[in-house]
Protein backbone atom coordinates (compact mmCIF):
# COMPACT_ATOMS: atom_id res chain seq x y z
CA UNK A 1 0.00 0.00 0.00
CA UNK A 2 0.80 3.66 -0.27
CA UNK A 3 1.34 3.73 3.48
CA UNK A 4 4.49 1.65 3.18
CA UNK A 5 6.37 4.22 1.16
CA UNK A 6 5.23 6.69 3.76
CA UNK A 7 6.62 4.60 6.58
CA UNK A 8 9.92 4.12 4.81
CA UNK A 9 10.38 7.80 4.43
CA UNK A 10 9.43 8.50 8.03
CA UNK A 11 11.95 5.92 9.13
CA UNK A 12 14.65 7.49 6.98
CA UNK A 13 13.69 10.83 8.40
CA UNK A 14 13.99 9.63 11.98
CA UNK A 15 17.32 7.97 11.26
CA UNK A 16 18.62 11.10 9.58
CA UNK A 17 17.57 13.23 12.54
CA UNK A 18 19.19 10.83 14.99
CA UNK A 19 22.42 10.59 13.01
CA UNK A 20 22.64 14.34 12.72
CA UNK A 21 21.68 14.91 16.32
CA UNK A 22 24.34 12.61 17.72
CA UNK A 23 27.11 13.20 15.28
CA UNK A 24 27.03 16.96 14.98
CA UNK A 25 29.28 18.41 17.65
CA UNK A 26 29.24 21.87 16.33
CA UNK A 27 26.55 23.92 17.96
CA UNK A 28 26.44 26.25 15.02
CA UNK A 29 25.27 23.51 12.71
CA UNK A 30 22.80 22.26 15.26
CA UNK A 31 21.50 25.77 15.60
CA UNK A 32 21.25 26.13 11.86
CA UNK A 33 19.28 22.90 11.73
CA UNK A 34 17.05 24.08 14.57
CA UNK A 35 16.24 27.19 12.59
CA UNK A 36 15.58 25.07 9.54
CA UNK A 37 13.22 23.03 11.69
CA UNK A 38 11.38 26.10 12.94
CA UNK A 39 11.10 27.50 9.44
CA UNK A 40 9.88 24.13 8.22
CA UNK A 41 7.11 24.30 10.79
CA UNK A 42 6.16 27.73 9.57
CA UNK A 43 6.30 26.69 5.94
CA UNK A 44 4.24 23.58 6.67
CA UNK A 45 1.65 25.65 8.45
CA UNK A 46 1.31 28.14 5.64
CA UNK A 47 1.47 25.36 3.08
CA UNK A 48 -1.69 23.85 4.55
CA UNK A 49 -3.44 27.15 4.02
CA UNK A 50 -1.85 28.31 0.80
CA UNK A 51 -0.64 25.21 -0.94
CA UNK A 52 -3.54 22.93 -0.17
CA UNK A 53 -6.49 25.23 0.45
CA UNK A 54 -5.33 27.92 -1.96
CA UNK A 55 -5.76 30.85 0.41
CA UNK A 56 -3.00 33.46 0.42
CA UNK A 57 -1.82 34.85 3.73
CA UNK A 58 0.61 37.74 3.87
CA UNK A 59 0.39 38.08 7.61
CA UNK A 60 1.32 34.67 8.89
CA UNK A 61 4.17 35.94 11.05
CA UNK A 62 1.46 37.36 13.32
CA UNK A 63 0.58 33.86 14.54
CA UNK A 64 4.25 33.02 14.89
CA UNK A 65 4.49 36.12 17.05
CA UNK A 66 1.37 35.39 19.06
CA UNK A 67 2.78 31.98 19.96
CA UNK A 68 6.06 33.51 21.01
CA UNK A 69 4.63 36.44 22.94
CA UNK A 70 1.96 34.52 24.80
CA UNK A 71 4.45 32.01 26.12
CA UNK A 72 6.97 34.77 26.88
CA UNK A 73 4.44 36.74 28.88
CA UNK A 74 3.04 33.73 30.71
CA UNK A 75 6.34 32.08 31.58
CA UNK A 76 8.24 35.24 32.41
CA UNK A 77 5.74 37.72 33.77
CA UNK A 78 3.45 35.19 35.39
CA UNK A 79 5.90 32.35 36.06
CA UNK A 80 3.74 29.75 34.38
CA UNK A 81 5.43 26.46 33.55
CA UNK A 82 6.40 26.53 29.86
CA UNK A 83 4.59 23.29 29.22
CA UNK A 84 1.40 24.85 30.54
CA UNK A 85 2.00 27.96 28.50
CA UNK A 86 2.09 25.89 25.34
CA UNK A 87 -1.66 25.23 25.11
CA UNK A 88 -2.32 28.86 25.97
CA UNK A 89 0.04 30.10 23.26
CA UNK A 90 -1.36 27.80 20.62
CA UNK A 91 -4.92 28.34 21.82
CA UNK A 92 -4.58 32.11 21.71
CA UNK A 93 -3.41 31.97 18.12
CA UNK A 94 -6.28 29.67 17.24
CA UNK A 95 -8.86 31.96 18.81
CA UNK A 96 -7.44 34.99 17.04
CA UNK A 97 -7.35 33.06 13.78
CA UNK A 98 -10.94 32.04 14.21
CA UNK A 99 -12.14 35.57 14.92
CA UNK A 100 -10.13 37.10 12.11
CA UNK A 101 -10.63 34.24 9.72
CA UNK A 102 -14.40 34.42 9.49
CA UNK A 103 -14.58 37.85 7.86
CA UNK A 104 -11.18 37.71 6.16
CA UNK A 105 -11.53 34.42 4.36
CA UNK A 106 -14.60 35.64 2.57
CA UNK A 107 -12.19 37.74 0.54
CA UNK A 108 -10.15 36.33 -2.28
CA UNK A 109 -7.14 37.12 -4.41
CA UNK A 110 -5.35 40.36 -3.67
CA UNK A 111 -8.09 41.42 -1.27
CA UNK A 112 -7.39 38.38 0.85
CA UNK A 113 -3.69 39.19 0.59
CA UNK A 114 -4.33 42.73 1.72
CA UNK A 115 -6.63 41.62 4.53
CA UNK A 116 -4.08 39.23 5.97
CA UNK A 117 -1.30 41.75 5.45
CA UNK A 118 -3.26 44.38 7.37
CA UNK A 119 -3.93 41.90 10.15
CA UNK A 120 -0.24 41.05 10.35
CA UNK A 121 0.68 44.72 10.55
CA UNK A 122 -1.83 45.36 13.33
CA UNK A 123 -0.48 42.50 15.42
CA UNK A 124 3.07 43.66 14.80
CA UNK A 125 2.20 47.19 15.90
CA UNK A 126 0.48 45.75 18.95
CA UNK A 127 3.68 43.89 19.93
CA UNK A 128 5.63 47.10 19.47
CA UNK A 129 3.33 49.58 21.16
CA UNK A 130 1.85 47.64 24.07
CA UNK A 131 5.14 47.94 25.84
CA UNK A 132 3.85 47.43 29.36
CA UNK A 133 3.02 43.85 28.44
CA UNK A 134 5.22 42.95 25.50
CA UNK A 135 8.34 44.89 26.35
CA UNK A 136 7.76 47.08 23.33
CA UNK A 137 10.24 47.67 20.58
CA UNK A 138 13.27 46.73 22.68
CA UNK A 139 11.91 43.29 23.05
CA UNK A 140 11.10 40.80 25.75
CA UNK A 141 14.02 39.54 27.80
CA UNK A 142 14.56 36.63 30.13
CA UNK A 143 12.32 33.91 28.76
CA UNK A 144 13.14 30.71 30.64
CA UNK A 145 14.34 27.54 28.93
CA UNK A 146 11.77 24.94 28.12
CA UNK A 147 11.25 22.33 30.81
CA UNK A 148 8.99 19.35 30.40
CA UNK A 149 8.93 17.45 33.65
CA UNK A 150 12.49 16.34 34.30
CA UNK A 151 13.68 17.27 30.80
CA UNK A 152 15.32 20.65 30.40
CA UNK A 153 15.86 21.73 26.83
CA UNK A 154 18.66 24.16 27.34
CA UNK A 155 21.31 22.72 25.07
CA UNK A 156 21.34 23.03 21.32
CA UNK A 157 21.40 19.25 20.94
CA UNK A 158 18.34 18.62 23.07
CA UNK A 159 16.54 21.44 21.33
CA UNK A 160 17.48 20.00 17.99
CA UNK A 161 15.75 16.74 18.90
CA UNK A 162 12.77 18.58 20.30
CA UNK A 163 12.28 20.78 17.25
CA UNK A 164 12.75 18.01 14.74
CA UNK A 165 10.50 15.74 16.77
CA UNK A 166 7.80 18.38 16.50
CA UNK A 167 8.54 18.77 12.80
CA UNK A 168 8.16 15.04 12.26
CA UNK A 169 4.89 14.96 14.17
CA UNK A 170 3.66 17.93 12.18
CA UNK A 171 4.60 16.29 8.92
CA UNK A 172 2.73 13.14 9.91
CA UNK A 173 -0.20 15.24 11.03
CA UNK A 174 -0.31 17.23 7.78
CA UNK A 175 0.10 14.08 5.74
CA UNK A 176 -2.78 12.42 7.56
CA UNK A 177 -5.03 15.41 7.15
CA UNK A 178 -4.22 15.73 3.48
CA UNK A 179 -4.89 12.07 2.82
CA UNK A 180 -8.22 12.19 4.62
CA UNK A 181 -11.69 13.35 3.78
CA UNK A 182 -10.92 16.85 5.09
CA UNK A 183 -7.70 17.03 3.13
CA UNK A 184 -9.39 16.09 -0.09
CA UNK A 185 -12.05 18.68 0.55
CA UNK A 186 -9.31 21.25 1.13
CA UNK A 187 -7.57 20.41 -2.08
CA UNK A 188 -10.87 20.57 -3.87
CA UNK A 189 -11.27 24.19 -2.70
CA UNK A 190 -7.88 24.93 -4.17
CA UNK A 191 -8.67 23.26 -7.47
CA UNK A 192 -12.07 24.86 -7.85
CA UNK A 193 -14.07 26.45 -5.11
CA UNK A 194 -17.25 26.40 -7.17
CA UNK A 195 -17.05 22.72 -7.94
CA UNK A 196 -16.09 21.96 -4.34
CA UNK A 197 -19.20 23.70 -3.08
CA UNK A 198 -21.32 21.95 -5.68
CA UNK A 199 -20.16 18.66 -4.28
CA UNK A 200 -21.23 19.56 -0.79
CA UNK A 201 -18.06 20.88 0.78
CA UNK A 202 -18.84 23.63 3.26
CA UNK A 203 -16.07 25.80 1.87
CA UNK A 204 -16.51 28.72 4.27
CA UNK A 205 -16.31 26.57 7.36
CA UNK A 206 -13.44 24.48 6.07
CA UNK A 207 -11.37 27.51 5.11
CA UNK A 208 -11.73 28.91 8.60
CA UNK A 209 -10.85 25.53 10.10
CA UNK A 210 -7.66 25.21 8.11
CA UNK A 211 -6.77 28.81 8.91
CA UNK A 212 -7.09 28.00 12.60
CA UNK A 213 -5.01 24.86 12.20
CA UNK A 214 -2.39 26.76 10.31
CA UNK A 215 -2.30 29.44 12.99
CA UNK A 216 -1.85 26.76 15.63
CA UNK A 217 1.19 25.33 13.86
CA UNK A 218 2.73 28.76 13.39
CA UNK A 219 2.13 29.52 17.06
CA UNK A 220 3.86 26.25 17.96
CA UNK A 221 6.88 27.44 15.99
CA UNK A 222 6.71 30.77 17.82
CA UNK A 223 6.57 28.98 21.15
CA UNK A 224 9.68 26.97 20.28
CA UNK A 225 11.44 30.07 19.00
CA UNK A 226 10.83 31.99 22.22
CA UNK A 227 12.26 29.25 24.39
CA UNK A 228 15.19 28.78 22.06
CA UNK A 229 16.41 32.37 21.93
CA UNK A 230 15.08 33.43 25.38
CA UNK A 231 14.42 36.78 23.81
CA UNK A 232 11.87 38.07 21.36
CA UNK A 233 11.28 41.42 19.72
CA UNK A 234 8.59 42.65 17.35
CA UNK A 235 10.96 42.87 14.39
CA UNK A 236 11.04 39.08 14.12
CA UNK A 237 7.32 39.02 13.37
CA UNK A 238 6.93 41.85 10.89
CA UNK A 239 5.74 42.03 7.33
CA UNK A 240 9.10 40.93 5.96
CA UNK A 241 8.92 37.79 8.09
CA UNK A 242 5.47 36.99 6.69
CA UNK A 243 6.74 37.41 3.18
CA UNK A 244 9.68 35.15 3.98
CA UNK A 245 7.31 32.36 5.02
CA UNK A 246 5.34 32.78 1.81
CA UNK A 247 8.57 32.64 -0.13
CA UNK A 248 9.62 29.41 1.55
CA UNK A 249 6.36 27.78 0.58
CA UNK A 250 6.41 29.00 -2.98
CA UNK A 251 10.08 28.33 -3.63
CA UNK A 252 9.83 24.86 -2.16
CA UNK A 253 6.70 24.16 -4.14
CA UNK A 254 3.13 24.60 -3.05
CA UNK A 255 1.01 21.69 -1.94
CA UNK A 256 4.06 19.62 -1.16
CA UNK A 257 5.16 18.69 2.33
CA UNK A 258 8.71 17.89 1.34
CA UNK A 259 8.69 21.07 -0.68
CA UNK A 260 8.02 23.00 2.51
CA UNK A 261 10.99 21.30 4.14
CA UNK A 262 13.13 22.08 1.14
CA UNK A 263 12.00 25.68 0.85
CA UNK A 264 12.59 26.28 4.54
CA UNK A 265 16.06 24.75 4.34
CA UNK A 266 16.99 26.76 1.30
CA UNK A 267 15.78 30.05 2.65
CA UNK A 268 17.54 29.46 5.96
CA UNK A 269 20.79 28.42 4.34
CA UNK A 270 20.80 30.88 1.46
CA UNK A 271 21.61 33.95 3.55
CA UNK A 272 24.44 32.00 5.18
CA UNK A 273 25.92 31.21 1.79
CA UNK A 274 25.27 34.66 0.49
CA UNK A 275 27.43 36.18 3.20
CA UNK A 276 30.20 35.65 0.72
CA UNK A 277 28.60 38.26 -1.50
CA UNK A 278 28.51 40.72 1.40
CA UNK A 279 27.25 43.97 -0.09
CA UNK A 280 25.76 42.16 -3.06
CA UNK A 281 23.77 39.80 -0.87
CA UNK A 282 20.43 41.53 -1.32
CA UNK A 283 20.85 41.89 -5.06
CA UNK A 284 21.70 38.23 -5.46
CA UNK A 285 18.89 37.13 -3.16
CA UNK A 286 16.36 39.16 -5.10
CA UNK A 287 17.62 37.79 -8.39
CA UNK A 288 17.40 34.20 -7.18
CA UNK A 289 13.86 34.73 -5.97
CA UNK A 290 12.78 36.25 -9.27
CA UNK A 291 14.48 33.68 -11.45
CA UNK A 292 13.02 30.74 -9.59
CA UNK A 293 9.54 32.15 -9.97
CA UNK A 294 9.98 33.06 -13.61
CA UNK A 295 11.49 29.78 -14.70
CA UNK A 296 10.11 27.30 -12.17
CA UNK A 297 6.83 28.80 -11.00
CA UNK A 298 5.82 25.52 -9.39
CA UNK A 299 8.75 25.79 -7.02
CA UNK A 300 12.14 24.20 -7.09
CA UNK A 301 11.19 20.65 -6.11
CA UNK A 302 8.30 20.41 -8.56
CA UNK A 303 10.28 22.31 -11.14
CA UNK A 304 13.14 19.85 -11.04
CA UNK A 305 10.75 16.89 -11.18
CA UNK A 306 8.95 18.52 -14.13
CA UNK A 307 12.20 19.00 -15.96
CA UNK A 308 13.15 15.40 -15.24
CA UNK A 309 9.90 14.11 -16.70
CA UNK A 310 10.12 16.38 -19.69
CA UNK A 311 13.61 15.05 -20.28
CA UNK A 312 12.38 11.47 -19.90
CA UNK A 313 9.53 12.11 -22.28
CA UNK A 314 11.71 13.59 -24.97
CA UNK A 315 14.02 10.58 -24.70
CA UNK A 316 11.26 8.02 -24.75
CA UNK A 317 10.14 9.17 -28.15
Amino acid at each position, binding site marked *: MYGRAQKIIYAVFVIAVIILGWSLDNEYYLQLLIFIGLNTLLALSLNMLMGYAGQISLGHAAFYGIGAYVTAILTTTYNVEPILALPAAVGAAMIVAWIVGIPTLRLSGYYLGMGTLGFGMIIHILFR*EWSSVTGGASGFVGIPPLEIGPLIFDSRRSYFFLVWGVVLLSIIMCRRIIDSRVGRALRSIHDGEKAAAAIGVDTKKLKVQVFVLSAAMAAMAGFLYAHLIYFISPGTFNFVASIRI*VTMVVIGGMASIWGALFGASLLTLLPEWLHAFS*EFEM*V*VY*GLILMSVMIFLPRGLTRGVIDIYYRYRKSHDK
Partner: protein
Amino acid sequence: MQEILQYLFSGLTNGAIYAVIAVGFSMLYSSTDLINFAHGEFVMLGALGMVSLTAGFGLPLIPAFFLTVAGVAAAGMLFERLAIRPVRHPEPIVLIIITVGASIFLRGAGMLIWGKNSYSMPPFSDHPPIDFAGARLLAQSIWILVIVTVVTAALHLFYRRTLTGKAMTACAVSKKAAWIVGIPTKWMVLLAFGLSTGMGAVAGAIISPITMPSYDMGTMLGLKGFCAAMFGGLGSLWGAILGGFLLGILEALGVGFVSSGLKDAAAFILLLLVLYVRPQGILGSADVKRF
Protein backbone atom coordinates in the same frame (compact mmCIF):
# COMPACT_ATOMS: atom_id res chain seq x y z
CA MET B 1 -9.08 75.02 15.70
CA GLN B 2 -5.56 75.99 14.84
CA GLU B 3 -4.46 72.52 15.84
CA ILE B 4 -7.05 70.80 13.75
CA LEU B 5 -5.95 72.88 10.79
CA GLN B 6 -2.36 71.90 11.47
CA TYR B 7 -3.36 68.23 11.60
CA LEU B 8 -5.14 68.66 8.32
CA PHE B 9 -2.06 70.22 6.77
CA SER B 10 0.06 67.37 8.03
CA GLY B 11 -2.50 64.92 6.70
CA LEU B 12 -2.63 66.65 3.34
CA THR B 13 1.12 66.48 2.91
CA ASN B 14 1.32 62.80 3.82
CA GLY B 15 -1.93 62.12 2.01
CA ALA B 16 -0.66 63.60 -1.22
CA ILE B 17 2.35 61.32 -1.05
CA TYR B 18 0.21 58.26 -0.38
CA ALA B 19 -2.13 59.34 -3.15
CA VAL B 20 0.51 59.47 -5.86
CA ILE B 21 1.88 56.12 -4.80
CA ALA B 22 -1.60 54.64 -4.66
CA VAL B 23 -2.30 55.91 -8.15
CA GLY B 24 0.71 53.98 -9.38
CA PHE B 25 -0.53 50.79 -7.75
CA SER B 26 -4.05 51.28 -8.91
CA MET B 27 -3.19 52.14 -12.48
CA LEU B 28 -1.08 49.06 -12.87
CA TYR B 29 -3.73 46.88 -11.29
CA SER B 30 -6.42 48.21 -13.57
CA SER B 31 -4.34 47.47 -16.66
CA THR B 32 -2.70 44.22 -15.68
CA ASP B 33 -4.44 42.79 -12.60
CA LEU B 34 -1.11 42.84 -10.88
CA ILE B 35 0.03 44.32 -7.58
CA ASN B 36 3.59 45.46 -7.81
CA PHE B 37 5.16 44.95 -4.41
CA ALA B 38 8.29 46.62 -5.75
CA HIS B 39 6.42 49.86 -6.32
CA GLY B 40 7.84 51.45 -3.18
CA GLU B 41 11.32 50.75 -4.50
CA PHE B 42 10.56 52.73 -7.63
CA VAL B 43 9.57 55.60 -5.37
CA MET B 44 12.97 55.24 -3.74
CA LEU B 45 14.65 55.27 -7.14
CA GLY B 46 12.77 58.45 -7.98
CA ALA B 47 13.82 60.19 -4.79
CA LEU B 48 17.46 59.14 -4.89
CA GLY B 49 17.67 59.70 -8.64
CA MET B 50 16.50 63.23 -8.04
CA VAL B 51 19.16 63.72 -5.38
CA SER B 52 21.87 62.36 -7.63
CA LEU B 53 20.91 64.42 -10.64
CA THR B 54 20.61 67.70 -8.76
CA ALA B 55 23.30 67.40 -6.13
CA GLY B 56 25.57 64.95 -7.93
CA PHE B 57 25.42 66.13 -11.52
CA GLY B 58 24.31 69.65 -10.79
CA LEU B 59 21.35 69.59 -13.13
CA PRO B 60 18.70 72.25 -12.63
CA LEU B 61 15.53 71.16 -10.94
CA ILE B 62 13.18 70.81 -13.89
CA PRO B 63 15.34 68.74 -16.25
CA ALA B 64 16.42 66.63 -13.30
CA PHE B 65 12.79 65.96 -12.46
CA PHE B 66 11.84 64.88 -15.93
CA LEU B 67 15.00 62.89 -16.45
CA THR B 68 14.42 61.05 -13.18
CA VAL B 69 10.84 60.21 -14.00
CA ALA B 70 11.75 59.08 -17.51
CA GLY B 71 14.64 56.99 -16.23
CA VAL B 72 12.56 55.24 -13.58
CA ALA B 73 9.74 54.65 -16.06
CA ALA B 74 12.26 53.03 -18.39
CA ALA B 75 13.46 50.86 -15.50
CA GLY B 76 9.87 49.87 -14.84
CA MET B 77 9.35 48.89 -18.44
CA LEU B 78 12.56 46.91 -18.42
CA PHE B 79 11.28 45.14 -15.33
CA GLU B 80 8.06 44.20 -17.12
CA ARG B 81 9.92 42.98 -20.17
CA LEU B 82 12.46 40.91 -18.25
CA ALA B 83 10.60 39.64 -15.23
CA ILE B 84 6.85 39.82 -15.80
CA ARG B 85 6.26 39.02 -19.45
CA PRO B 86 8.24 35.75 -19.46
CA VAL B 87 6.01 34.32 -16.73
CA ARG B 88 3.95 31.61 -18.31
CA HIS B 89 1.25 31.20 -15.69
CA PRO B 90 0.75 34.62 -14.18
CA GLU B 91 -1.04 33.59 -11.01
CA PRO B 92 -1.23 36.23 -8.27
CA ILE B 93 1.00 34.33 -5.89
CA VAL B 94 3.78 33.88 -8.46
CA LEU B 95 3.61 37.55 -9.38
CA ILE B 96 3.66 38.54 -5.73
CA ILE B 97 6.87 36.63 -5.16
CA ILE B 98 8.45 38.01 -8.32
CA THR B 99 7.69 41.57 -7.38
CA VAL B 100 8.85 40.94 -3.83
CA GLY B 101 12.06 39.57 -5.30
CA ALA B 102 12.33 42.66 -7.46
CA SER B 103 11.85 44.87 -4.45
CA ILE B 104 14.70 43.14 -2.62
CA PHE B 105 16.85 43.37 -5.72
CA LEU B 106 16.15 47.06 -6.22
CA ARG B 107 16.76 47.83 -2.58
CA GLY B 108 20.07 45.99 -2.81
CA ALA B 109 20.96 47.84 -5.98
CA GLY B 110 19.98 51.11 -4.34
CA MET B 111 22.27 50.33 -1.46
CA LEU B 112 25.16 49.59 -3.80
CA ILE B 113 24.63 52.78 -5.76
CA TRP B 114 23.77 55.26 -3.04
CA GLY B 115 25.16 53.62 0.08
CA LYS B 116 23.32 53.35 3.34
CA ASN B 117 23.08 57.01 4.20
CA SER B 118 20.13 59.30 4.03
CA TYR B 119 20.46 62.25 1.71
CA SER B 120 19.24 65.75 1.98
CA MET B 121 17.73 67.66 -0.83
CA PRO B 122 16.88 71.37 -0.88
CA PRO B 123 13.21 72.24 -1.32
CA PHE B 124 12.05 73.15 -4.80
CA SER B 125 11.73 76.76 -3.80
CA ASP B 126 13.24 78.60 -0.91
CA HIS B 127 10.22 80.04 0.74
CA PRO B 128 9.42 80.26 4.44
CA PRO B 129 6.48 78.21 5.72
CA ILE B 130 3.14 79.74 4.94
CA ASP B 131 0.82 80.78 7.73
CA PHE B 132 -2.90 80.02 7.62
CA ALA B 133 -4.71 81.09 10.76
CA GLY B 134 -1.76 80.10 12.87
CA ALA B 135 -1.20 76.75 11.17
CA ARG B 136 1.92 76.44 9.07
CA LEU B 137 2.38 74.73 5.76
CA LEU B 138 5.76 74.16 4.14
CA ALA B 139 6.32 75.61 0.72
CA GLN B 140 7.36 72.14 -0.40
CA SER B 141 3.99 70.77 0.72
CA ILE B 142 2.36 73.22 -1.60
CA TRP B 143 4.67 72.07 -4.34
CA ILE B 144 3.64 68.53 -3.59
CA LEU B 145 -0.04 69.36 -3.66
CA VAL B 146 0.32 71.35 -6.87
CA ILE B 147 2.33 68.68 -8.63
CA VAL B 148 -0.01 65.95 -7.48
CA THR B 149 -2.93 67.94 -8.82
CA VAL B 150 -1.19 68.59 -12.12
CA VAL B 151 -0.13 64.99 -12.52
CA THR B 152 -3.59 63.72 -11.64
CA ALA B 153 -5.18 66.11 -14.09
CA ALA B 154 -2.66 65.08 -16.75
CA LEU B 155 -3.42 61.42 -16.12
CA HIS B 156 -7.10 62.11 -16.24
CA LEU B 157 -6.73 63.87 -19.55
CA PHE B 158 -4.46 61.12 -20.83
CA TYR B 159 -7.09 58.52 -20.10
CA ARG B 160 -10.01 60.59 -21.34
CA ARG B 161 -8.57 62.49 -24.27
CA THR B 162 -5.86 60.48 -25.95
CA LEU B 163 -6.28 57.43 -28.09
CA THR B 164 -3.56 55.58 -26.18
CA GLY B 165 -5.22 56.41 -22.89
CA LYS B 166 -8.53 55.15 -24.12
CA ALA B 167 -6.87 52.07 -25.48
CA MET B 168 -5.43 51.44 -22.03
CA THR B 169 -8.87 51.78 -20.50
CA ALA B 170 -10.16 49.38 -23.12
CA CYS B 171 -7.44 46.92 -22.15
CA ALA B 172 -8.43 47.26 -18.53
CA VAL B 173 -12.08 46.60 -19.35
CA SER B 174 -11.36 43.56 -21.45
CA LYS B 175 -8.03 42.53 -22.78
CA LYS B 176 -9.61 40.21 -25.29
CA ALA B 177 -11.98 42.81 -26.70
CA ALA B 178 -9.15 45.31 -27.01
CA TRP B 179 -7.02 42.74 -28.75
CA ILE B 180 -9.73 41.94 -31.27
CA VAL B 181 -10.14 45.60 -32.10
CA GLY B 182 -6.46 45.76 -33.01
CA ILE B 183 -4.96 47.25 -29.87
CA PRO B 184 -1.54 45.74 -29.16
CA THR B 185 -2.23 44.70 -25.59
CA LYS B 186 1.34 43.70 -24.77
CA TRP B 187 2.53 47.17 -25.57
CA MET B 188 -0.26 48.58 -23.43
CA VAL B 189 0.89 46.50 -20.49
CA LEU B 190 4.43 47.70 -21.01
CA LEU B 191 3.20 51.24 -21.14
CA ALA B 192 1.16 50.73 -17.99
CA PHE B 193 4.30 49.61 -16.22
CA GLY B 194 6.16 52.63 -17.46
CA LEU B 195 3.41 55.01 -16.37
CA SER B 196 2.95 53.34 -13.03
CA THR B 197 6.62 53.33 -12.11
CA GLY B 198 6.90 56.82 -13.56
CA MET B 199 4.21 57.90 -11.11
CA GLY B 200 6.25 56.24 -8.39
CA ALA B 201 9.22 58.30 -9.47
CA VAL B 202 7.13 61.47 -9.40
CA ALA B 203 6.15 60.64 -5.85
CA GLY B 204 9.77 60.00 -4.94
CA ALA B 205 11.02 63.16 -6.59
CA ILE B 206 8.54 65.54 -5.03
CA ILE B 207 8.94 64.18 -1.54
CA SER B 208 12.72 64.02 -1.67
CA PRO B 209 13.15 67.46 -0.04
CA ILE B 210 11.06 66.57 2.99
CA THR B 211 11.87 62.91 3.52
CA MET B 212 15.64 62.62 3.43
CA PRO B 213 15.66 59.70 1.07
CA SER B 214 17.66 56.56 1.65
CA TYR B 215 17.82 53.18 -0.04
CA ASP B 216 15.35 51.58 2.37
CA MET B 217 12.65 54.24 2.31
CA GLY B 218 10.49 52.40 -0.18
CA THR B 219 9.01 49.49 1.73
CA MET B 220 6.85 51.38 4.18
CA LEU B 221 5.80 53.95 1.60
CA GLY B 222 4.83 51.15 -0.74
CA LEU B 223 2.73 49.46 1.91
CA LYS B 224 0.96 52.67 2.82
CA GLY B 225 0.32 53.42 -0.82
CA PHE B 226 -1.04 49.93 -1.33
CA CYS B 227 -3.30 50.48 1.67
CA ALA B 228 -4.53 53.75 0.24
CA ALA B 229 -5.22 52.18 -3.13
CA MET B 230 -7.23 49.38 -1.53
CA PHE B 231 -8.94 51.84 0.71
CA GLY B 232 -10.17 53.99 -2.13
CA GLY B 233 -10.90 51.11 -4.45
CA LEU B 234 -8.29 49.24 -6.41
CA GLY B 235 -8.38 50.14 -10.06
CA SER B 236 -9.94 53.56 -9.72
CA LEU B 237 -7.97 56.78 -10.24
CA TRP B 238 -10.12 58.97 -8.03
CA GLY B 239 -10.38 56.15 -5.53
CA ALA B 240 -6.61 56.07 -5.20
CA ILE B 241 -6.44 59.84 -4.75
CA LEU B 242 -9.26 59.83 -2.23
CA GLY B 243 -7.81 56.82 -0.43
CA GLY B 244 -4.41 58.50 -0.19
CA PHE B 245 -5.71 61.75 1.25
CA LEU B 246 -8.11 60.00 3.60
CA LEU B 247 -5.36 57.78 4.91
CA GLY B 248 -3.04 60.74 5.41
CA ILE B 249 -5.64 62.84 7.17
CA LEU B 250 -6.86 59.97 9.32
CA GLU B 251 -3.31 59.26 10.40
CA ALA B 252 -2.75 62.89 11.32
CA LEU B 253 -6.02 63.07 13.24
CA GLY B 254 -5.12 59.75 14.83
CA VAL B 255 -1.90 61.28 16.12
CA GLY B 256 -3.75 64.33 17.31
CA PHE B 257 -6.64 62.70 19.06
CA VAL B 258 -5.69 59.10 19.79
CA SER B 259 -2.04 58.21 20.13
CA SER B 260 0.92 58.69 17.90
CA GLY B 261 2.11 55.16 18.57
CA LEU B 262 -1.09 53.59 17.34
CA LYS B 263 -1.59 55.72 14.26
CA ASP B 264 -0.25 53.03 11.93
CA ALA B 265 -2.48 50.45 13.53
CA ALA B 266 -5.44 52.78 13.15
CA ALA B 267 -4.81 52.96 9.42
CA PHE B 268 -4.69 49.21 9.08
CA ILE B 269 -7.69 48.56 11.31
CA LEU B 270 -9.69 50.97 9.21
CA LEU B 271 -8.46 49.22 6.11
CA LEU B 272 -9.62 45.85 7.43
CA LEU B 273 -13.03 47.27 8.21
CA VAL B 274 -13.31 48.69 4.71
CA LEU B 275 -12.29 45.33 3.29
CA TYR B 276 -14.86 43.50 5.38
CA VAL B 277 -17.71 45.84 4.71
CA ARG B 278 -16.94 46.97 1.19
CA PRO B 279 -14.09 44.95 -0.32
CA GLN B 280 -14.11 46.93 -3.52
CA GLY B 281 -13.08 50.06 -1.59
CA ILE B 282 -14.85 53.34 -1.17
CA LEU B 283 -15.05 54.28 -4.82
CA GLY B 284 -14.29 51.06 -6.60
CA SER B 285 -17.16 49.09 -7.98
CA ALA B 286 -16.97 45.36 -8.18
CA ASP B 287 -17.21 44.90 -11.90
CA VAL B 288 -16.29 48.08 -13.72
CA LYS B 289 -12.67 49.06 -13.90
CA ARG B 290 -12.25 52.56 -15.01
CA PHE B 291 -9.43 54.99 -14.74
